[in-house]
Protein backbone atom coordinates (compact mmCIF):
# COMPACT_ATOMS: atom_id res chain seq x y z
CA UNK A 1 0.00 0.00 0.00
CA UNK A 2 2.47 2.52 -1.17
CA UNK A 3 1.29 5.52 -3.08
CA UNK A 4 3.27 8.67 -3.34
CA UNK A 5 2.35 11.87 -5.03
CA UNK A 6 4.82 14.59 -5.43
CA UNK A 7 3.55 18.05 -5.08
CA UNK A 8 6.14 20.74 -4.94
CA UNK A 9 8.71 20.21 -2.28
CA UNK A 10 6.64 18.19 0.12
CA UNK A 11 5.63 14.65 -0.63
CA UNK A 12 2.77 12.98 1.07
CA UNK A 13 3.68 9.37 1.47
CA UNK A 14 2.16 6.47 3.23
CA UNK A 15 5.43 5.06 4.28
CA UNK A 16 6.22 1.48 4.83
CA UNK A 17 8.52 1.74 7.74
CA UNK A 18 7.26 -1.56 9.10
CA UNK A 19 10.56 -3.22 9.71
CA UNK A 20 12.21 -0.11 11.05
CA UNK A 21 9.36 0.67 13.38
CA UNK A 22 8.78 -2.82 14.68
CA UNK A 23 12.45 -3.48 14.92
CA UNK A 24 12.87 -0.35 16.95
CA UNK A 25 9.97 -1.15 19.21
CA UNK A 26 10.88 -4.75 19.74
CA UNK A 27 14.55 -4.18 20.07
CA UNK A 28 14.36 -1.13 22.27
CA UNK A 29 14.27 -2.85 25.59
CA UNK A 30 16.95 -5.32 24.64
CA UNK A 31 19.15 -2.65 23.16
CA UNK A 32 18.81 -0.43 26.13
CA UNK A 33 19.76 -3.21 28.49
CA UNK A 34 22.73 -4.22 26.39
CA UNK A 35 23.66 -0.62 25.89
CA UNK A 36 23.64 -0.06 29.59
CA UNK A 37 25.85 -3.06 30.10
CA UNK A 38 28.25 -1.70 27.53
CA UNK A 39 28.20 1.70 29.16
CA UNK A 40 28.83 0.10 32.48
CA UNK A 41 31.61 -1.95 30.91
CA UNK A 42 33.34 1.11 29.54
CA UNK A 43 33.11 2.82 32.88
CA UNK A 44 34.20 -0.38 34.56
CA UNK A 45 37.20 -0.57 32.29
CA UNK A 46 38.04 3.01 33.05
CA UNK A 47 37.32 2.69 36.72
CA UNK A 48 38.41 -0.86 37.29
CA UNK A 49 41.73 -0.89 35.52
CA UNK A 50 43.23 -2.99 38.26
CA UNK A 51 40.99 -5.94 37.58
CA UNK A 52 41.41 -8.47 34.85
CA UNK A 53 39.56 -7.05 31.92
CA UNK A 54 36.32 -8.82 31.20
CA UNK A 55 35.59 -9.41 27.58
CA UNK A 56 33.17 -6.90 26.15
CA UNK A 57 30.68 -8.49 23.82
CA UNK A 58 30.92 -6.74 20.52
CA UNK A 59 27.20 -7.00 20.10
CA UNK A 60 26.72 -4.99 23.25
CA UNK A 61 28.41 -2.00 21.73
CA UNK A 62 25.28 -0.61 20.19
CA UNK A 63 23.29 2.41 21.21
CA UNK A 64 24.60 2.95 24.70
CA UNK A 65 22.52 5.18 26.91
CA UNK A 66 23.92 8.61 27.68
CA UNK A 67 25.48 9.04 31.06
CA UNK A 68 25.40 12.03 33.36
CA UNK A 69 28.46 12.35 35.58
CA UNK A 70 27.72 14.39 38.67
CA UNK A 71 29.80 15.66 41.50
CA UNK A 72 30.86 18.73 43.41
CA UNK A 73 33.76 20.95 42.49
CA UNK A 74 37.03 19.09 42.23
CA UNK A 75 35.46 15.66 42.46
CA UNK A 76 37.30 14.28 39.49
CA UNK A 77 34.71 14.59 36.77
CA UNK A 78 37.13 16.05 34.24
CA UNK A 79 39.69 13.39 35.06
CA UNK A 80 37.14 10.64 34.59
CA UNK A 81 35.90 12.14 31.33
CA UNK A 82 39.42 12.33 30.07
CA UNK A 83 40.06 8.74 31.11
CA UNK A 84 36.94 7.68 29.21
CA UNK A 85 38.24 9.63 26.21
CA UNK A 86 41.55 7.80 26.33
CA UNK A 87 39.82 4.46 26.73
CA UNK A 88 37.57 5.06 23.74
CA UNK A 89 40.45 6.46 21.69
CA UNK A 90 42.39 3.30 22.31
CA UNK A 91 39.41 1.23 21.25
CA UNK A 92 39.79 2.09 17.61
CA UNK A 93 36.10 2.73 17.20
CA UNK A 94 36.51 6.28 16.10
CA UNK A 95 37.56 9.70 17.29
CA UNK A 96 36.39 11.27 20.50
CA UNK A 97 34.84 14.71 20.56
CA UNK A 98 35.54 16.49 23.84
CA UNK A 99 33.63 19.69 24.40
CA UNK A 100 34.48 22.04 27.21
CA UNK A 101 34.36 25.73 27.79
CA UNK A 102 38.02 26.28 28.50
CA UNK A 103 41.08 24.30 27.46
CA UNK A 104 42.25 21.91 30.12
CA UNK A 105 45.08 23.55 32.01
CA UNK A 106 46.94 20.32 32.27
CA UNK A 107 46.25 16.81 31.23
CA UNK A 108 44.58 15.16 34.14
CA UNK A 109 45.72 11.69 34.90
CA UNK A 110 49.35 11.32 34.07
CA UNK A 111 49.37 7.62 33.44
CA UNK A 112 51.15 5.99 30.58
CA UNK A 113 47.96 5.82 28.60
CA UNK A 114 47.48 9.56 28.95
CA UNK A 115 50.79 10.25 27.30
CA UNK A 116 50.24 7.93 24.35
CA UNK A 117 50.28 10.30 21.38
CA UNK A 118 48.32 7.92 19.21
CA UNK A 119 45.45 8.08 21.60
CA UNK A 120 45.67 11.80 22.18
CA UNK A 121 45.52 12.37 18.45
CA UNK A 122 42.13 10.75 18.35
CA UNK A 123 40.63 13.16 20.86
CA UNK A 124 39.29 16.29 19.26
CA UNK A 125 38.85 19.19 21.63
CA UNK A 126 36.45 22.00 20.93
CA UNK A 127 35.82 24.95 23.19
CA UNK A 128 32.44 26.58 22.58
CA UNK A 129 32.69 29.73 24.68
CA UNK A 130 28.98 30.31 25.20
CA UNK A 131 25.71 28.45 25.27
CA UNK A 132 24.83 29.90 21.91
CA UNK A 133 28.04 28.55 20.40
CA UNK A 134 27.43 25.16 21.96
CA UNK A 135 23.93 25.05 20.52
CA UNK A 136 25.31 26.08 17.14
CA UNK A 137 27.88 23.31 17.33
CA UNK A 138 25.29 20.69 18.18
CA UNK A 139 22.76 21.90 15.61
CA UNK A 140 25.37 21.80 12.87
CA UNK A 141 27.01 18.55 13.94
CA UNK A 142 25.63 16.78 10.89
CA UNK A 143 27.42 19.22 8.61
CA UNK A 144 30.87 18.32 9.87
CA UNK A 145 33.01 16.25 7.56
CA UNK A 146 35.57 13.70 8.56
CA UNK A 147 35.27 10.55 10.63
CA UNK A 148 32.25 10.36 12.89
CA UNK A 149 32.95 10.49 16.60
CA UNK A 150 32.37 7.32 18.55
CA UNK A 151 32.17 9.19 21.82
CA UNK A 152 30.86 12.63 22.61
CA UNK A 153 31.93 14.20 25.88
CA UNK A 154 30.86 17.47 27.43
CA UNK A 155 32.56 18.85 30.51
CA UNK A 156 31.02 21.60 32.58
CA UNK A 157 27.38 21.51 31.53
CA UNK A 158 26.63 23.72 34.53
CA UNK A 159 28.56 26.57 32.96
CA UNK A 160 26.38 26.47 29.88
CA UNK A 161 23.22 26.20 31.93
CA UNK A 162 24.21 29.10 34.12
CA UNK A 163 23.70 31.55 31.31
CA UNK A 164 20.27 32.39 32.54
CA UNK A 165 18.57 29.59 30.66
CA UNK A 166 14.93 28.89 31.26
CA UNK A 167 13.89 25.31 31.76
CA UNK A 168 12.78 24.81 28.21
CA UNK A 169 16.14 26.00 26.95
CA UNK A 170 17.89 23.69 29.38
CA UNK A 171 15.71 20.86 28.10
CA UNK A 172 16.62 21.79 24.54
CA UNK A 173 20.31 21.71 25.33
CA UNK A 174 20.00 18.27 26.92
CA UNK A 175 17.81 17.05 24.06
CA UNK A 176 20.23 18.36 21.44
CA UNK A 177 23.11 16.55 23.12
CA UNK A 178 21.12 13.33 22.86
CA UNK A 179 20.10 14.11 19.31
CA UNK A 180 23.68 14.80 18.25
CA UNK A 181 24.90 11.55 19.77
CA UNK A 182 22.00 9.76 18.11
CA UNK A 183 22.95 11.24 14.76
CA UNK A 184 26.57 10.17 15.22
CA UNK A 185 25.37 6.69 16.17
CA UNK A 186 23.29 6.56 13.03
CA UNK A 187 26.23 7.65 10.91
CA UNK A 188 28.67 5.28 12.54
CA UNK A 189 26.40 2.45 11.54
CA UNK A 190 24.61 -0.50 13.08
CA UNK A 191 26.42 -2.58 15.64
CA UNK A 192 28.38 0.40 16.86
CA UNK A 193 27.21 3.63 18.31
CA UNK A 194 28.27 6.94 19.69
CA UNK A 195 28.39 7.23 23.42
CA UNK A 196 27.57 10.38 25.33
CA UNK A 197 28.90 11.35 28.73
CA UNK A 198 28.14 14.75 30.18
CA UNK A 199 29.69 16.10 33.35
CA UNK A 200 27.66 18.40 35.53
CA UNK A 201 28.95 20.08 38.61
CA UNK A 202 26.52 19.90 41.48
CA UNK A 203 26.63 22.31 44.39
CA UNK A 204 28.71 21.38 47.41
CA UNK A 205 27.03 18.94 49.72
CA UNK A 206 24.45 20.77 51.74
CA UNK A 207 23.71 23.40 49.15
CA UNK A 208 20.32 22.89 47.54
CA UNK A 209 20.97 24.23 44.07
CA UNK A 210 18.38 24.08 41.31
CA UNK A 211 16.58 20.83 42.03
CA UNK A 212 14.15 21.22 39.18
CA UNK A 213 16.89 21.66 36.63
CA UNK A 214 18.68 18.62 37.97
CA UNK A 215 15.55 16.49 37.87
CA UNK A 216 14.95 17.70 34.33
CA UNK A 217 18.41 16.60 33.26
CA UNK A 218 17.92 13.28 34.98
CA UNK A 219 14.92 12.64 32.78
CA UNK A 220 17.10 13.01 29.72
CA UNK A 221 19.95 11.06 31.27
CA UNK A 222 18.50 8.09 33.10
CA UNK A 223 21.96 6.64 33.68
CA UNK A 224 24.03 8.60 36.16
CA UNK A 225 27.31 8.30 37.95
CA UNK A 226 27.67 10.26 41.15
CA UNK A 227 31.00 11.24 42.65
CA UNK A 228 30.79 11.74 46.40
CA UNK A 229 33.57 13.19 48.44
CA UNK A 230 34.86 10.79 51.02
CA UNK A 231 37.07 11.66 53.94
CA UNK A 232 40.39 12.76 52.45
CA UNK A 233 43.67 11.21 53.38
CA UNK A 234 46.81 13.29 53.69
CA UNK A 235 47.70 14.77 50.33
CA UNK A 236 45.11 12.81 48.43
CA UNK A 237 41.43 13.06 47.82
CA UNK A 238 39.05 10.15 47.81
CA UNK A 239 35.74 9.92 46.08
CA UNK A 240 33.08 7.31 45.86
CA UNK A 241 31.78 6.81 42.35
CA UNK A 242 28.28 5.35 42.22
CA UNK A 243 27.05 4.20 38.87
CA UNK A 244 23.27 4.09 38.66
CA UNK A 245 22.25 2.81 35.25
CA UNK A 246 18.68 4.02 35.62
CA UNK A 247 17.27 0.73 36.73
CA UNK A 248 18.51 -1.13 33.69
CA UNK A 249 21.53 -2.72 35.18
CA UNK A 250 23.23 -3.30 38.45
CA UNK A 251 24.38 -0.43 40.53
CA UNK A 252 28.13 -0.36 40.96
CA UNK A 253 30.48 1.61 43.12
CA UNK A 254 34.14 2.39 43.07
CA UNK A 255 36.54 4.31 45.16
CA UNK A 256 38.50 6.89 43.21
CA UNK A 257 41.58 8.47 44.73
CA UNK A 258 43.67 11.31 43.38
CA UNK A 259 47.28 11.51 44.39
CA UNK A 260 49.02 14.87 44.72
CA UNK A 261 50.72 14.35 41.36
CA UNK A 262 47.34 13.98 39.72
CA UNK A 263 47.44 10.25 39.28
CA UNK A 264 44.09 8.62 39.60
CA UNK A 265 43.68 5.21 41.15
CA UNK A 266 40.48 3.29 41.24
CA UNK A 267 39.37 0.26 43.13
CA UNK A 268 36.00 -1.32 43.53
CA UNK A 269 34.08 -0.28 46.57
CA UNK A 270 33.98 -1.22 49.43
CA UNK A 271 37.64 -2.18 49.34
CA UNK A 272 39.25 1.07 50.36
CA UNK A 273 41.61 2.63 47.86
CA UNK A 274 42.53 5.36 50.26
CA UNK A 275 45.90 5.15 51.89
CA UNK A 276 45.57 2.44 54.51
CA UNK A 277 47.82 4.33 56.85
CA UNK A 278 45.30 7.06 57.16
CA UNK A 279 42.17 5.09 57.63
CA UNK A 280 40.72 7.60 59.99
CA UNK A 281 37.17 8.55 59.34
CA UNK A 282 36.92 6.95 55.91
CA UNK A 283 33.45 5.63 55.77
CA UNK A 284 33.04 1.95 56.16
CA UNK A 285 31.87 -0.37 53.47
CA UNK A 286 28.28 0.24 54.40
CA UNK A 287 26.31 2.26 51.91
CA UNK A 288 22.63 2.89 51.41
Amino acid at each position, binding site marked *: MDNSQTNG*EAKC*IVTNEASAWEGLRAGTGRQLRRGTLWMAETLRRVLGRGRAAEPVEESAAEAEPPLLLLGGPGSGKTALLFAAALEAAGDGRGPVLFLTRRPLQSLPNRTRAALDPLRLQKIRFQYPPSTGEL*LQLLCSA*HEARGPTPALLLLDGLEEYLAEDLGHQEA*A*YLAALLLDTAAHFSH*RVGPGRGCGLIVALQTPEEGDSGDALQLSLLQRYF*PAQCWLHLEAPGPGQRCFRACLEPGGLGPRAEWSVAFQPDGEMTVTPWPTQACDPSSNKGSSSGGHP
Partner: protein
Amino acid sequence: MADALAVVTLPTVVEELLNEMAAAVQESAQIPDEHLLSLKFIFGSSAIQALDLVDQQSITLISSPSGRQVYQVLGSSGKTYICLASCHYCSCPAFAFSVLRKSDSLLCKHVLAVYLSQVMRTCQQLSVSDKQLTEILMQKKQKA
Protein backbone atom coordinates in the same frame (compact mmCIF):
# COMPACT_ATOMS: atom_id res chain seq x y z
CA MET B 1 14.45 6.61 13.61
CA ALA B 2 17.43 6.84 15.85
CA ASP B 3 17.82 4.15 18.43
CA ALA B 4 18.33 6.76 21.07
CA LEU B 5 14.58 7.41 21.07
CA ALA B 6 14.59 4.68 23.64
CA VAL B 7 16.59 6.84 25.97
CA VAL B 8 13.77 9.05 27.07
CA THR B 9 11.32 6.26 27.21
CA LEU B 10 7.60 6.17 27.40
CA PRO B 11 5.94 4.35 30.22
CA THR B 12 5.63 0.65 29.41
CA VAL B 13 1.88 0.76 29.10
CA VAL B 14 2.14 3.46 26.46
CA GLU B 15 4.80 1.55 24.56
CA GLU B 16 2.65 -1.54 24.59
CA LEU B 17 -0.34 0.39 23.38
CA LEU B 18 1.64 1.90 20.52
CA ASN B 19 2.94 -1.55 19.61
CA GLU B 20 -0.57 -2.92 19.48
CA MET B 21 -1.71 0.00 17.41
CA ALA B 22 1.14 -0.48 14.98
CA ALA B 23 0.21 -4.14 14.57
CA ALA B 24 -3.45 -3.29 14.08
CA VAL B 25 -2.69 -0.61 11.54
CA GLN B 26 -0.61 -3.06 9.61
CA GLU B 27 -3.65 -5.28 9.29
CA SER B 28 -6.42 -2.85 8.68
CA ALA B 29 -4.82 0.57 8.07
CA GLN B 30 -6.99 1.98 10.83
CA ILE B 31 -6.71 2.34 14.54
CA PRO B 32 -9.25 0.13 16.27
CA ASP B 33 -11.74 1.85 18.54
CA GLU B 34 -10.45 0.10 21.63
CA HIS B 35 -7.02 1.59 21.04
CA LEU B 36 -8.51 5.01 20.58
CA LEU B 37 -10.26 4.62 23.88
CA SER B 38 -7.04 3.56 25.56
CA LEU B 39 -5.29 6.56 24.09
CA LYS B 40 -7.95 8.85 25.42
CA PHE B 41 -7.77 7.20 28.79
CA ILE B 42 -4.04 7.67 29.06
CA PHE B 43 -3.61 11.04 27.45
CA GLY B 44 -6.94 12.71 27.83
CA SER B 45 -7.75 15.49 25.45
CA SER B 46 -4.19 15.51 24.10
CA ALA B 47 -5.01 12.24 22.39
CA ILE B 48 -7.86 13.78 20.38
CA GLN B 49 -5.78 16.77 19.47
CA ALA B 50 -2.88 14.56 18.48
CA LEU B 51 -5.09 12.40 16.29
CA ASP B 52 -6.45 15.53 14.67
CA LEU B 53 -2.94 16.67 13.90
CA VAL B 54 -2.22 13.34 12.24
CA ASP B 55 -5.45 13.47 10.25
CA GLN B 56 -4.69 16.96 9.06
CA GLN B 57 -1.26 15.90 7.81
CA SER B 58 0.31 18.40 10.14
CA ILE B 59 3.45 16.42 10.76
CA THR B 60 6.45 16.70 8.50
CA LEU B 61 9.60 14.64 8.79
CA ILE B 62 12.45 16.84 7.64
CA SER B 63 15.70 15.21 6.67
CA SER B 64 18.93 16.26 5.06
CA PRO B 65 21.55 14.39 3.07
CA SER B 66 23.45 13.81 6.30
CA GLY B 67 20.66 11.52 7.50
CA ARG B 68 19.78 13.71 10.45
CA GLN B 69 16.09 14.26 10.93
CA VAL B 70 13.72 16.48 12.79
CA TYR B 71 9.96 16.74 12.92
CA GLN B 72 8.02 19.86 12.24
CA VAL B 73 4.45 20.02 13.44
CA LEU B 74 1.90 22.58 12.36
CA GLY B 75 0.03 23.47 15.51
CA SER B 76 -3.63 24.29 15.69
CA SER B 77 -2.78 27.95 16.15
CA GLY B 78 -0.96 28.00 12.83
CA LYS B 79 2.47 28.11 14.41
CA THR B 80 4.98 25.42 13.60
CA TYR B 81 6.92 23.67 16.28
CA ILE B 82 9.83 21.34 16.03
CA CYS B 83 10.06 18.00 17.73
CA LEU B 84 13.33 16.15 17.87
CA ALA B 85 13.38 12.73 16.28
CA SER B 86 15.62 11.07 18.82
CA CYS B 87 14.19 12.11 22.16
CA HIS B 88 11.30 13.97 23.72
CA TYR B 89 11.45 17.60 22.95
CA CYS B 90 8.98 20.03 21.48
CA SER B 91 9.33 23.78 21.21
CA CYS B 92 5.73 24.45 22.16
CA PRO B 93 4.64 26.14 25.40
CA ALA B 94 2.78 23.06 26.59
CA PHE B 95 5.98 21.07 26.52
CA ALA B 96 7.71 23.81 28.47
CA PHE B 97 4.97 23.49 31.03
CA SER B 98 5.20 19.72 31.24
CA VAL B 99 8.91 20.11 31.81
CA LEU B 100 8.14 21.96 35.00
CA ARG B 101 5.97 19.22 36.35
CA LYS B 102 8.26 16.59 37.70
CA SER B 103 5.78 13.78 37.79
CA ASP B 104 4.62 13.94 34.20
CA SER B 105 6.40 12.41 31.29
CA LEU B 106 7.76 14.93 28.84
CA LEU B 107 4.94 14.90 26.38
CA CYS B 108 2.70 17.29 24.52
CA LYS B 109 0.16 16.71 21.78
CA HIS B 110 2.78 17.36 19.14
CA VAL B 111 5.16 14.70 20.44
CA LEU B 112 2.23 12.35 20.78
CA ALA B 113 1.18 13.17 17.23
CA VAL B 114 4.69 12.32 16.05
CA TYR B 115 4.45 8.92 17.74
CA LEU B 116 1.03 8.32 16.23
CA SER B 117 2.18 9.31 12.77
CA GLN B 118 4.93 6.73 13.09
CA VAL B 119 2.46 4.08 14.18
CA MET B 120 0.13 4.91 11.33
CA ARG B 121 3.08 5.36 9.02
CA THR B 122 1.84 8.54 7.55
CA CYS B 123 3.49 11.91 7.55
CA GLN B 124 4.73 14.47 5.10
CA GLN B 125 8.34 14.27 4.13
CA LEU B 126 10.61 17.12 3.27
CA SER B 127 14.21 17.12 2.16
CA VAL B 128 16.39 20.09 2.92
CA SER B 129 20.07 20.79 2.69
CA ASP B 130 22.39 20.20 5.63
CA LYS B 131 22.67 23.92 6.19
CA GLN B 132 18.94 24.38 6.15
CA LEU B 133 18.54 21.64 8.70
CA THR B 134 20.97 23.44 10.97
CA GLU B 135 18.90 26.57 10.68
CA ILE B 136 15.73 24.72 11.48
CA LEU B 137 17.30 23.25 14.58
CA MET B 138 18.78 26.59 15.60
CA GLN B 139 15.51 28.42 15.15
CA LYS B 140 14.27 26.89 18.30
CA LYS B 141 17.02 28.41 20.28
CA GLN B 142 14.78 30.26 22.60
CA LYS B 143 14.43 33.95 22.61
CA ALA B 144 14.19 35.02 26.25
